[in-house]
């Protein structure tokens, strides 16, 4: 399995990467950890003619305390998120979810920016950032803008990123303590989630998101509304599949996924301290 040929350019800064992708238009793609892009290139589902390697861009793998939130560079690897003392103390859910991505080899290459930009509804980190109510900083030829995670995932493998924009930073609110949980259901250890549920209490409200329950990572708004009006964990979890269009594949039918969403939401809520 060999990808189609392409030209390779290494960018040493975000500005350089953005001018390279602007110059080459939709022929070009950014290469971060390559752990979503290279498999797609091998299957020829992606055939970029130019790859702009951003893995060596310095200053974008930080994990920093910014007062009320933590800022994470787009090139921070899953492994450094999983092991960050700052995240373990101030945003333990994100560190935990990073530790559930694939296996050690994947976590040593894959980046949070690549994971979010790829916008795979079956990925773990997008759901975590959604449940936390985080936001994304993206940079383009005309400067920066901030996009709420809830507005970022626009379709199946599609995001609000324009072709000449690069994701540079992810912001998550501080959410220490134990009122959070991540349920990842799979049949083989280290596999992708068949369904996943992330729950986190942020500023007193329970926020819940779903993995692999539609064409994008989703907030479980029906569950959140039920909780806000005083429902118990079990009552709220009954709403988990409402309004979703779960995919069908070899692993599960939409009905089975809906069942899993309800069961896993109940477990996630109870483990997060909702009665």
């Amino acid at each position: 399995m060999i990808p189609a040929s392409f030209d390779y350019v290494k960018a040493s800064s975000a500005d350089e990467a953005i001018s390279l992708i602007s110059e080459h238009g939709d022929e070009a793609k950014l290469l971060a950890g390559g752990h979503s892009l290279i498999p797609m290139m091998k299957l020829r589902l992606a055939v970029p003619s130019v790859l702009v390697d951003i893995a060596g861009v310095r200053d974008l793998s930080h994990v920093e305390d910014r007062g009320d939130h933590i800022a994470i560079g787009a090139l921070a690897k899953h492994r450094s998120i999983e092991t960050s003392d700052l995240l373990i103390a101030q945003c333990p859910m994100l560190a935990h979810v990073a530790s559930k991505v694939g296996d050690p080899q994947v976590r040593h290459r894959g980046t949070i920016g690549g994971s979010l930009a790829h916008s795979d509804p079956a990925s773990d980190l997008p759901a975590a950032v959604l449940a936390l109510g985080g936001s994304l900083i993206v940079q383009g030829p005309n400067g920066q803008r901030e996009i709420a995670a809830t507005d970022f995932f626009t379709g199946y493998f599609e995001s609000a990123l324009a072709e000449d924009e690069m994701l540079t930073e992810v912001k998550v609110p501080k959410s220490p303590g134990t009122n959070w949980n991540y349920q990842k259901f799979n049949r083989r250890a280290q596999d992708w989630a068949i369904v996943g549920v992330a729950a986190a209490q942020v500023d007193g409200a329970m926020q819940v998101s779903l993995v692999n329950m539609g064409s994008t990572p989703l907030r479980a708004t029906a569950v959140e509304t039920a909780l806000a009006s005083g429902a118990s964990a079990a009552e709220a979890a009954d709403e988990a599949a409402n309004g979703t269009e779960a995919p069908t594949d070899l692993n599960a039918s939409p009905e089975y996924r809906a069942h899993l969403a309800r069961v896993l939401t109940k477990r996630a809520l109870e483990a997060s301290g909702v009665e």
Partner: protein
Amino acid sequence: MNAEESYEIRLKVNGRTQHVTAPARRLLSDALRGELGLTGTHVGCEHGVCGCCTVLVDGAPVRSCLTFAVAVQDKDIRTVEGLAAGDGELHPVQEAFKECHGLQCGFCTPGFLMTACALIEQNNDPTEQEITEAIAGNLCRCTGYQNIRAAVRRAAEITRSDKR
């Protein structure tokens, strides 16, 4: 269509810098095996599942079938050929796999050895759970994993006693 462009790629493998001329799409696994003749790195699935192609890049276990050679220029790459000492003395992980029968056909073994080596360099006293998680990205169709786990445990033990 134009002829495919070649790149001069500097690869530092097992402490030696070598030059490879190859297109950008050359995978690290293929550059190691094809251009450099280091066929100890095995290629099983070619799409990131089996872990046979695991090598160390700056000390971290990485799948060489999902890495372009051109993207790891000047990084410190280690393969199974670099484990044993120049005089043939086995590395603790090799010694332990031999002692504990951590292999049968041996196809998966180079990947397991490199993964185990990375673990033990970071933590020479891993718990059972840490061992299981560290090798979770490597598949073995023969052993049933029990002897592999025993070998990793033993390799940690040898490393600790060597340090004393």
